[in-house]
């Protein structure tokens, strides 16, 4: 009797031993993997922190009234500024948005309000998604072949056209999703009053979808404002101010690229200054928008996936 009990006690002890050893091994692996996940997060934060730090640190010393208002001077002496590039970015991006936003919004409205799941709308949705993933330099080739060669000159039109191709798929998707989450009861109430569908869509449903669409447009604008590759082949870059829509023009990303490829210290410093101006335009636009518009809507947009 006594013996049996002690053997049982012994076994229990053994089982507990094994279990605790197993579970401590399990816990160790769990800890290691948790630590790995945290290291992953940190390793993504370091570059972001370093980029912002360097741009602000090196950029601030380059910025002056002359830098923001004068055309480029000598690279070597670091004279002049980036005013034509700022002007050019605003003009090209503005024109691209004038083309891209209406087309994108209308197309998104069609997908959400008019189309079902037929072949045509499905094809539009699918290829729209594919279009978001195409390299921006390909849009440069499109602008070059279809506009620059046609007009015989590098031009604002070509740059704006190339950038609008990048913008449209983003706006289409955001518009469709913003319209889809508007409750049907709103449409039904308006419909029961006898209001035609196009007016319901444009004046009533649009009211609820507006902030989502606005977010999408700002996101697309900040995306195309930072594009360099398509501009090399379309607007070319110049050190002069705007002369007309069918002539070349400068842009901030292009100017940064040219400044960075100069062998002079002063040019690099100007490059950092231009980068600070660009990043301020892009980041302020998206942070301000995020704080003031998006908090009101249920629909959350993830810019990382565009």
């Amino acid at each position, binding site marked *: 009797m006594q013996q049996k009990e002690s053997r049982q006690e012994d076994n229990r002890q053994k089982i507990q031993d094994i279990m605790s050893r197993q579970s401590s091994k*399990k816990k160790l*692996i*769990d800890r290691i993997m*948790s630590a790995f*996940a945290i*290291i*992953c*997060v940190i390793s*993504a934060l370091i*570059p*972001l922190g370093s*980029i912002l730090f*360097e741009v602000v640190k090196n950029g601030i010393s380059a910025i002056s009234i002359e830098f923001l208002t004068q055309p480029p001077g000598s690279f070597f002496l670091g004279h002049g500024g980036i005013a034509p590039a700022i002007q050019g970015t605003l003009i090209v991006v503005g024109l691209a948005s004038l083309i891209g936003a209406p*087309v994108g919004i*209308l197309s998104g409205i*069609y*997908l959400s309000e008019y189309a079902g799941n037929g072949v*045509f709308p499905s094809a539009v*949705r699918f*290829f729209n*998604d*594919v279009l978001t*993933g*195409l*390299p921006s*330099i*390909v849009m*440069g*080739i*499109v602008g*070059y*072949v279809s506009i620059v060669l046609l007009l015989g000159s590098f031009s604002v039109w070509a740059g704006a056209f190339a950038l609008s*191709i990048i913008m*449209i798929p983003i706006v289409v998707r955001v518009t469709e999703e913003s319209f889809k989450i508007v409750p049907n009861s709103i449409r039904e109430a*308006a419909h029961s*009053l*006898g*209001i*035609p*569908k*196009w007016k319901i*869509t*444009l*004046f009533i449903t649009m009211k609820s979808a507006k902030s989502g669409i606005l977010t999408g447009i700002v996101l697309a604008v*900040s995306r195309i404002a930072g594009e*360099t590759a398509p501009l090399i*082949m379309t607007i070319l870059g110049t050190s002069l101010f705007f002369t007309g829509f069918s002539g070349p023009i400068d842009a901030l*990303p292009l100017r*940064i*690229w040219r400044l*960075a*490829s100069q062998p002079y210290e002063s040019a690099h410093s100007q490059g950092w200054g231009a980068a600070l101006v*660009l*990043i301020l335009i892009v*980041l302020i636009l998206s942070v301000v928008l995020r704080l003031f518009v998006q908090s009101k809507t249920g*629909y959350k947009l*993830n*810019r*990382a*996936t565009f």
Partner: protein
Amino acid sequence: MYSSLLQGKHKGDRIFHIVAVAAAGYTLFMLAIIAFSVGDGSKEIFSFEGFGFLTGTDWNPVEGRESYGALPYIIGTLISSAIAMIIGVPISLGIAVFISEMAPRRLSTPLSFIIELLAAVPSIIYGLWALFVFRFWIRDLIEMPLHNAFGESIPFFAQTPFGLDVFTAGIVLAIMIIPIVSSVSREIIKAVPNSQREAAYSLGATRWETVRVAIFPYAKSGLLGAAILGLGRAVGETILVTMIIGNVVGIAAIPSSIFDQSQTLSSLIANEFNEASSELQISALMGLGAVLLILTIVINIGARLLVSKITKVSPGVRE
């Protein structure tokens, strides 16, 4: 207030419908313009070089001795993207798991915002930072020690590193694809039903075991899709690569070690486009664009199919 809305019933509806369909059709039309432009731009080089354009290694724009081949740049693109994937995808998965499974809500929301911010930085600024700051970190902290330790025994590390090479390009590309890969992965992990997690936890699984046995297998194809979306980005990225890959042409662009200079399809286009001396050279650059376009279309279609199978919605949208 809405009485004015009651007018113009049928005609307005028809017109608006037509306009909306036309706008949607424009999306498909754009794809046609892209295909036409790239095809038209590159037809000269394909009739000059034929199929040999894809397998040639020369890049000689001198008149009378012209010879163009895309192979070194295809290889350069694939190697730099492969490095980006090897480094970027595990980190992105770690971030996705941390944000969706481990972090408390008050930490996960700002963290996903910060990761999104990484996507907001224009690639030209990544390039500037990589050229003037990051490449020296890479050279001094990773490349030199590896080269000193293994340079003589393993040819993989043979080249004396300068920081302007396919390895640095790959790492910066890895940083650039982290936002998209981790965001899409996070959405896919979120789409895994909670019953999967509960079943694993009730069997006594630790958090890691739950991720490993319950979440990863369920989300496998979607996570693969997320990684491939990142690959599409890495393959097509232009200006950043142009600034740090070293820009060599011809046979020299096939890297002999991971610390060797190279060139990608897109970086060569950006580099030579403004200095191109002949129609044929421009057409050769467009030919590189055609190869790049086909490569990225295939990659993107594959990725979208894999991702939408899991989440049933377009990636990028969470409610």
